[in-house]
């Protein structure tokens, strides 16, 4: 239901995003994983049409048969909120501190749904219940600062799904939250996605979180998608060297409670650091940091599929291309 083709974003003549192909199926949950500077947030913004004016965008973002990149501001505004919902990272900053909760959620409803008066109030209560907030009747009169971080984020989610969108884009929605709260919010997102057959684009730097929530994943590095497909296949048998390295550097938690084997063992690292925009090498963007790089890597690797739902761009894949 969402198809990115040849999406290119440039600022000041520097190309920062170049995505040949990325698909999101209806009802599916796709994690877009990358570190800072990878372009994951920019990609989400490109889909939403929220890029700053100075950027040059080309290619197509097909949603419901329309190319979002070709739509004018007014048409985009209609789609945003009604058919695509957004949840951002820091709820404290996305909620208006001067407005009561009820009013903020009802604004989202009024903008996109055809309800008036009491029907709006009822819908607000219903939404707050759906995001599992206790005592919604009391909550509508409260201000954001009177709620905990987790509750604020639930309110954000309520506002985002108010118009029953087909797609929900969430950018690091749980990064600022405690781990127990995070689990609840993630479970909420999963259940909302399943109940409403709503697709989810989950942008994150955390592979562990993405594994919990998503069934598909796309790994982005230097503005390119380097590997994409079924989450279990990619996490268990990563092909692209960056994906493999990213997995290796993740501290994770020990299997079977074997904590004593964990302690004191050094973590694997990736040599060097992410280059600044415009300083990436030609061909495979990761080759300067890759231990397995060869001269071949100076040319961009083609898309290879190790299985129908696992594609990558690497000349020297980690599993030898075996699925």
């Amino acid at each position, binding site marked *: 239901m969402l198809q990115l083709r040849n999406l290119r974003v440039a600022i000041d003549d520097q190309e920062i995003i170049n995505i040949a192909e990325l698909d999101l199926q209806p009802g599916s949950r796709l994690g877009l994983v990358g570190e800072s500077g990878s372009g994951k947030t920019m990609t989400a913004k490109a889909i939403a049409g929220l890029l700053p004016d100075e950027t040059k965008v080309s290619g197509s973002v097909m949603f419901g048969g329309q190319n979002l990149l070709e739509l004018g501001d007014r048409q985009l505004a209609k789609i945003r909120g009604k058919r695509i919902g957004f949840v951002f990272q820091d709820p404290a900053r996305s909620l208006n501190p001067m407005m009561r909760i009820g009013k903020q959620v009802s604004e989202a409803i009024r903008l996109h749904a055809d309800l008036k008066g009491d029907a709006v109030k009822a819908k607000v209560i219903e939404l707050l219940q759906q995001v599992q907030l206790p005592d919604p009747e009391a909550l509508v009169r409260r201000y954001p600062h009177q709620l905990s971080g987790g509750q604020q984020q639930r309110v954000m989610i309520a506002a985002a799904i108010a118009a029953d969108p087909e797609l929900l884009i969430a950018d690091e929605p749980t990064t600022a939250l405690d781990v127990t709260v995070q689990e609840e919010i993630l479970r909420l997102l999963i259940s909302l996605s399943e109940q409403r057959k709503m697709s989810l684009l989950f942008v994150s730097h*955390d592979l562990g979180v993405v594994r919990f929530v998503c069934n598909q994943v796309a790994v982005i590095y230097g503005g390119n998608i380097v590997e994409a497909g079924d989450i279990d296949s990619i996490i268990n048998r990563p092909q692209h060297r960056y994906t493999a390295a990213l997995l290796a550097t993740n501290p994770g938690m020990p*299997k079977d409670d074997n904590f004593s084997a964990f302690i004191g063992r*050094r973590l694997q690292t990736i040599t060097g650091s992410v280059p600044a925009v415009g300083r990436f090498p030609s061909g495979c963007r990761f080759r300067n940091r890759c231990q397995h790089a060869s001269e071949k890597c100076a040319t961009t690797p083609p898309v290879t599929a190790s299985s129908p739902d696992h594609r990558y761009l690497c000349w020297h894949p980690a599993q030898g291309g075996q699925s």
Partner: protein
Amino acid sequence: MTSSTTPLVSVEQMFFHYPRAKITSGGSGWTLQDISLSIALKSTVGIVGESGSGKSTLIRVMCGLLRHQQGTVQFNGKDLSEYQDDGANELRRQNQIVFQNPRRSLDPRMTIRRSLTEPIRALQNRTPDDDELVTSIKRVGLGPEVLSRFPHQLSGGQLQRVGIARSLSVNPTILYADEPVSALDVSVQAQVLNLLMDLRDQMGLTLVMVSHDLGVVSRMCEHIVVMRHGHIVEAGRTSDVLSRPSSDYTATLLKAARAASLERS
């Protein structure tokens, strides 16, 4: 004066509240309540908890930056209040902190060189020469070029290394790290954690690390302290506490952490 069994830091029934907090008869208002724990020399201890648990406040009380209202805190067998004048400087020298956000922990108007010399100037009354600074900066894996730079010219990972170099420049006995890798990317986290492990071994440091991330703590720390709402919920060897938690809260934390983590062997 201290036997090998005297802990380096010892806390007994300590209570702390911030200056303008109102303490009610029900006990609320205290940021830290009834804290008792000890840190052995050269051990590595992880303090975990969620926001509001008081973990960051705890290390500041333990190293003497904040003064507690009740209970005792001892460093090297001596009560913190007994470190006066020159002793106060010595206490500061032996207790150093590494902060969470590398961009906030260095003065943006000072060059790296200047930031690095500050602790030595303040505590040892001398200005180190460039040779000493270069050794310091190389020890954390950076090159001498960074000395003339300003913080905004370095990346988060580089800045965090500078922060570590700065706190180690005075050869402390114990290093408190307040969420040292939370603000960094995963791959950079690994580099900085490895660095901390290496330095700890090289310099014989006692390391106390505050973190909300159980995965990081289970990698780095043989001992763990679990905190909640200003109390210590449980404490002990990491492998014991995490494989057989005696508290429901710890079990909840573990479950949530596992859910959002990758399983590694």
